[in-house]
């Protein structure tokens, strides 16, 4: 019995083979490790980004889960009432949140440092219990705590005194003709008592952006007093109990039911002397949502809507009167709302739309009788560009009523600070134009006796037609106190819920987590950047693996000869490849984590413009590692399998004799008899295709051009490379014989066509990608703004923290700001377009968070008429559209569909639509937001801008903007056009002067102006950084490939020792042999470089011819130079080594 057991198997053969050839196979394992490292690294980077965004989003919210944004200001105290009855929430904290500008001139003679767009948070000590970061002590009174970001901008330290420009909060909308537009901000001096880190509540932010918010914290009570809202807050923060942390539905349901007392939503209830209850609002006019909510609780009561207005002047043919109150109210007979009795004692009814009822005082003043006409001059309900417009209406006097009873009710008129609280009319401090000289003694007598009692009564229909605005059409609601209804009962009845008033609680934490998913798939992006590294390492993997197999070709022939079927041979090779792959992949995982860390370092330093702020931290997730492993395994396995597949089809005797290589060079050609013609056809088609595509590019626009030429270059690269492959295989070779050393070197490239082909494609592809991708580089023209470019012809762009109401094109306004006559003449060609701006999230490429509510801009008629900018696509123009002006499409009125969604035409930047808002189809797509009132608005994209300054914003018509967002007053976005017949002759110092002047004039409003060129550069910086990253990593891949190629060259020479020895034996000197090897190496490098350069030049042809764009000559020269240097160096070392081997050694058979 033989003691030796049959332990020999395929598995053992595989192990022994790998162990025996392990030194040769190290390179394969390393190449696989590199592939896997890149894959794992980029996937880990993607997860790190998502995790970093998520962490940032959660960290800066602390324990805040939900937030309620009041339509105005509500009592702070109501939150403690809510807390007592809350089932879901463990903490309810009121704050005031306003935007402000800060100034610090504490720096001992240094210039004042400013920080605009600072989020001022007025909070109590309770706020800090929502997080872990807190100041040393809570600020009191005139004290402020800054976060590091704000402190850095202000160059502030503890103890500095800074100025905070706080908004002045007024109830009446500023753009109402009865609202105040001057002094919208006021300075408050405060002392810095602490600086908190930019983390946790120190970076408290409700919007999604990776940029650290500029925050400042003050005492809630102090801030409320400063902005004239004592005891109030405008935001309430909610922290859920642990068991409800994921139950958003339950939480919001409770929130929506929270009660708001009338004073919380600005409602005032007064019992009048006439006995009815009057409801008025701090805003002067009821907003439609509040009015509807309130009246819905009065349906079982008798009530009337009242609309009080002011006529600046009332005239008749025989008289005039100034500053008369007009009331639009149904005239009824029953008290207390009526009766209105005419001079004959008859009751008067509601006048028709073209009629009015005047009281006896006015009738006498105007000397009118019933049937005669009077003209009312009034201020239009809304201002235009800060200007109050006057309008007229003629009405026929229906009746003259006695100044008594219901007709002499001064309480119809709501309290208006500066008017109704003044003793005399002359003391009025109104927000509208007022000429006290017009006030007569009779007027003052009337005021003294009757106060603001209406002198004219019109129909509610008239008032609605002429005086209704986006702010509303009701100044008061009179309620008949039936069945014992009193103020307290009415107050209780009108205690409404948050949901009834349309205040939308927001699940801010959930929204932040959703937004943190981001829009930029960094893993996919960086995988694309690293594509060449992956391709290079895969090619190297294949090259090195196949080298090993080639070396053992006789073994494959042997086993086939002794009867192994092809499948068995395949099994052997695949088993080897699997083990190598496994080893490489495992090593690659460890390297991959390191690579991810390196990429993060790169993103925090040289590629920082892509992120904006260095906030990434490494987060290795199992899913990234597993996916990276799977991809690494799949790619490597496929490559090794593909590379070795052909060995299965070589005849066994060819493998045994080593003549299989000859089969590739024109003998038995792969692909059979049709292989050669098909191969040649493929090359011809590719080259012709390249030329055709280039032709397409010439006739297309810039974007089409870039794509077409890039595609053309890629086809050219493939065609040229394929022609090389055919030449290596001998299918294109001539019959001429080699006469020179260089010819011999070039002919030697055909020894191993596969190896030569792979080497040249490695070089060519890298060079092509590194150079041609620059065709997508974006740059700002040095030629100045252009109407049809991304800057639309504007020199400057500005944004303010607070609204500006003045018409900045008005000579009077400019003069009032301090411009002298000489300056005014210079400013004649300066035109400023003011846009409305609704706060929101930046949806540009600068923001990595997913945007839920982008910033919305409202463009006026002047801007639309001007036109300009460049569009990538425009909806088919509707009838009546001015030829070529896509902006006109914005003027289509909103359409409300059956489900109540308001469809609004909008224009956005192409990149914003597709990448930030993920609306890939572009024109025709809609993006929906939900307004605080609960209404849904769908912005329909009617045109897409091309690389414009409006990236990240949605633009709609100003008129639509005012209807949708009535609470947004004034202008906060400005574009400055400076017209000149010749842009080059334009005095650019004027541009600087305009910029400085405007910033200085509106520094309190926080106006910050930059050049459009600077703005575009900042936007382009992201894409350009991505391109640079791609080029850097592509260059890295190229160098990797070159080094690997050196290894391949060296291995190849080891195999050719016999051949080299023969050359030495027939008289070639060592130097000559060295030269042959060097020339072979150089030939591969130059061929690869050549096809890469030719193809890339085609790809960047538009840039070359137009002089536009950024040509990376430097990068190309450095990369190409390094490639040649390393390639020649390795070739030199290998050639030197092989040339100096003793010939006898090489000639020996074994």
């Amino acid at each position, binding site marked *: 019995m033989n003691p*030796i057991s049959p332990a*020999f198997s395929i598995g053992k053969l595989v192990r*022994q083979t790998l162990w025996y*050839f392990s030194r040769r196979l190290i390179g394969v394992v390393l190449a696989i490790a590199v592939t896997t490292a890149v894959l794992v690294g980029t996937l880990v980077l993607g997860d790190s980004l998502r995790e970093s965004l998520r962490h940032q989003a959660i960290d800066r919210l602390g324990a805040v889960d939900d937030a309620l944004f009041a339509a105005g200001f509500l009592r702070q105290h109501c939150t403690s009432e809510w807390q007592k009855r809350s089932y879901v929430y463990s903490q309810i904290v009121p704050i005031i949140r306003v935007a402000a500008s800060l100034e610090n001139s504490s720096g001992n003679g240094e210039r004042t440092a400013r920080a605009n767009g600072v989020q001022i948070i007025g909070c109590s000590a309770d706020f800090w219990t929502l997080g872990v970061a807190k100041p040393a002590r809570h600020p009191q009174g005139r004290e402020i705590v800054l976060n590091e970001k704000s402190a850095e901008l202000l160059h502030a330290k503890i103890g500095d005194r800074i100025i905070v420009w706080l908004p002045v909060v007024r109830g009446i909308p500023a753009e109402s003709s009865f609202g105040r537009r001057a002094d919208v901000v006021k300075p408050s001096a405060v002392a810095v008592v602490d600086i908190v880190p930019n983390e946790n509540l120190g970076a408290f932010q409700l919007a999604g952006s990776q940029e650290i918010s500029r925050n400042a914290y003050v005492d809630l009570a102090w801030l409320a007093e400063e902005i004239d809202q004592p005891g109030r807050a405008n935001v309430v923060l909610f922290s859920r109990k642990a068991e409800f942390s994921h139950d958003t539905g339950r939480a919001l349901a409770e929130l929506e039911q929270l009660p708001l007392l009338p004073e919380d939503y600005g409602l005032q209830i007064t019992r009048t002397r006439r006995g009815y209850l009057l409801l008025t609002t701090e805003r002067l006019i009821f907003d439609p949502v509040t009015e509807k909510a309130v009246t819905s609780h009065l349906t079982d009561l008798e009530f009337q809507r009242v609309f009080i207005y002011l006529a600046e002047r009332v005239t008749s043919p025989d008289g005039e009167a100034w500053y008369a109150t007009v009331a639009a109210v149904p005239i009824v007979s029953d008290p207390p709302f009526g009766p209105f009795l005419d001079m004959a004692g008859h009751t008067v009814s509601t006048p028709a739309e073209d009629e009015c009822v005047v009281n006896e005082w006015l009738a006498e003043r105007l000397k009118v009788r019933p049937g005669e006409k009077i003209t009312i001059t009034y201020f239009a309900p809304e201002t235009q560009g800060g200007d109050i417009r006057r309008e007229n209406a003629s009405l026929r006097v229906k009746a003259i009523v006695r100044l008594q009873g219901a007709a002499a009710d001064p309480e119809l008129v709501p309290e208006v600070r500066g008017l109704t609280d003044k003793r005399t009319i002359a003391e009025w401090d109104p927000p509208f134009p007022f000429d006290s000289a017009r006030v007569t003694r009779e007027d003052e007598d009337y005021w003294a006796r009757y106060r603001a009692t209406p002198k004219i009564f019109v129909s509610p229909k008239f008032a609605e037609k002429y005086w209704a605005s986006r702010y509303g059409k009701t100044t008061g609601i009179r309620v008949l106190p039936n069945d014992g209804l009193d103020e307290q009962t009415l107050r209780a009845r009108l205690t409404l819920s948050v949901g009834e008033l349309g205040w939308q609680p927001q699940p801010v934490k959930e929204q932040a987590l959703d937004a943190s998913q981001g829009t930029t798939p960094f893993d996919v992006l960086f995988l694309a950047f690293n594509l060449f590294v992956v391709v290079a390492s895969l090619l190297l993997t294949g090259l090195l693996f196949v080298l090993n197999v080639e070396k053992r070709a006789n073994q494959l022939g042997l086993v*086939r*000869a*002794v009867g192994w079927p092809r499948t*068995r041979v395949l099994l052997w090779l695949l088993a080897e490849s699997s083990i190598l792959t496994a080893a490489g992949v495992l090593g690659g995982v460890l390297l991959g984590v390191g690579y991810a860390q390196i990429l993060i370092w790169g993103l925090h330093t040289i590629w920082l413009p892509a992120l904006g702020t260095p906030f990434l931290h490494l987060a290795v997730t199992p899913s990234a590692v597993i996916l990276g492993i799977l991809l690494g395994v799949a790619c490597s396995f496929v490559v090794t399998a593909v590379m070795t597949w052909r060995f299965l089809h070589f005849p066994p*005797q060819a493998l*045994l004799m080593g003549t299989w290589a000859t089969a590739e060079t024109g003998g038995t050609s792969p692909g059979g008899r049709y292989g050669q013609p098909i191969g040649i056809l493929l090359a011809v088609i590719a080259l012709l295709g390249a030329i055709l595509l280039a032709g397409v590019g010439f006739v297309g626009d810039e974007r089409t051009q870039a794509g077409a030429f890039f595609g053309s270059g890629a086809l050219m690269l493939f065609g040229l490379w394929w022609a090389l492959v055919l030449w290596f295989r001998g299918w294109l070779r001539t019959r001429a014989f080699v006469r020179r050393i260089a010819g011999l070197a070039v002919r030697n490239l055909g020894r191993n066509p596969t190896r030569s082909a792979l080497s040249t494609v490695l070089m060519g592809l890298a060079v092509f990608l590194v150079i041609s991708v620059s065709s997508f580089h974006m740059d700002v023209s040095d030629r100045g703004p252009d109407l049809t470019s991304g800057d639309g012809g504007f020199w400057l762009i500005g944004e303010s923290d607070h609204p500006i109401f003045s018409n900045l094109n008005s000579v009077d306004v400019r003069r009032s700001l301090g411009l002298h006559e000489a300056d005014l003449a210079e400013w004649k060609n300066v035109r400023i377009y003011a846009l409305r701006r609704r706060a929101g999230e930046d949806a540009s490429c600068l923001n990595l968070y997913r945007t839920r509510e982008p910033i919305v801009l409202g463009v006026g008629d002047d801007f639309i008429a001007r036109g300009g900018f460049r569009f990538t696509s425009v909806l088919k123009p509707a009838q009546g559209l001015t030829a070529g002006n896509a902006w006109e499409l914005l003027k289509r009125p909103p359409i409300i569909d059956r489900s109540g969604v308001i469809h609004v035409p909008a224009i956005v930047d192409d990149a914003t639509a597709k990448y930030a808002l993920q609306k890939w189809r572009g024109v025709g797509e809609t993006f929906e937001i939900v307004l605080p009132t609960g209404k849904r608005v769908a912005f329909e994209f009617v045109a897409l801008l091309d690389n414009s300054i409006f990236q990240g914003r949605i633009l709609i018509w100003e008129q639509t903007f005012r209807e949708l967002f009535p609470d947004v007053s004034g202008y906060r976005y400005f574009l400055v056009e400076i017209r000149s017949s010749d842009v080059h002759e334009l005095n650019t110092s004027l541009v600087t002067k305009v910029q400085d002047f405007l910033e200085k004039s509106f520094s309190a409003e926080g106006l910050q102006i930059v050049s459009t060129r600077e703005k575009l550069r900042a936007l382009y910086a992201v894409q350009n950084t991505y391109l640079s990253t791609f080029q850097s990593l592509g260059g890295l891949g190229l160098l990797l490939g070159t080094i690997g190629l050196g290894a391949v060259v060296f291995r190849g020479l080891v195999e050719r020792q016999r051949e080299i020895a023969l050359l030495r034996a027939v008289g070639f000197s060592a130097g000559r042999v060295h030269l042959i090897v060097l020339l072979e190496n150089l030939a591969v490098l130059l061929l690869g470089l050549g096809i890469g350069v030719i193809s890339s030049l085609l790809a960047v042809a538009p840039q070359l011819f137009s002089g536009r764009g950024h040509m990376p000559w430097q990068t190309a020269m450095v990369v190409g130079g390094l490639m040649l240097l390393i390639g020649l160096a390795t070739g030199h070392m290998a050639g030197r080594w092989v040339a100096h081997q003793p010939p006898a050694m090489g000639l020996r058979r074994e």
Partner: protein
Amino acid sequence: MTVLAVQGLKKVYPSPGQPLCVLNNVEFELRSGDRVAILGPSGSGKSTLLNIIGGLDQPTEGRVVVDGQVVSEMPERELSRYRNRTVGFVFQDHHLLPQCTVLENVLVPCLASGSPQQDDVNWALALLDRVGLKDRVWHRPGELSGGERQRVAIARALIRRPALILADEPTGNLDRSTGEQVAQLLVELHQEQNNILIVVTHSEHLAGVIGKQCRLENGQLRWENV
């Protein structure tokens, strides 16, 4: 009894000039127990004839029939089986796997369809003993002399007890003395196994050891000393 019949065999290679006809209507028949040496100058087609008989190459015309089966018409899988079970190759270059031991090299054909069994191992050991290498079983090819390696190759060729042994210049890389030993071994084993032995050689001396000879010239086979 195995019968090998070569019928009207023709092999033509395409070339840039005229096609090269290396085998032109070659015909012969051999049975178990027969052995023959095929002589001829370099490039005369000797190895080609051997490769066609062994199923490593395809004829342009004609056929090879072994026990009624036409080798040239076999599908790939069957051809592999034919080479594994019916044919045993001995090459000029032994083509031993350097990463395997002597024993494992002999057992390589057994891996064609599974793993070698105990019987296979026993037979391999017996063969190695027979060729005088029983003490080198665990050595690797790199530790053997040229003659020893060729003897391993011979053992490998016999592991499946094939009906045909095809040896292509088996002593071509060996010195005269070693070559004689190897040649003698081949003959002895042939006699013991009663298979068909065909040896291709340009060595008259080796041909003499084999016995029956034929010569391949201009594509035609001419029998000598029949």
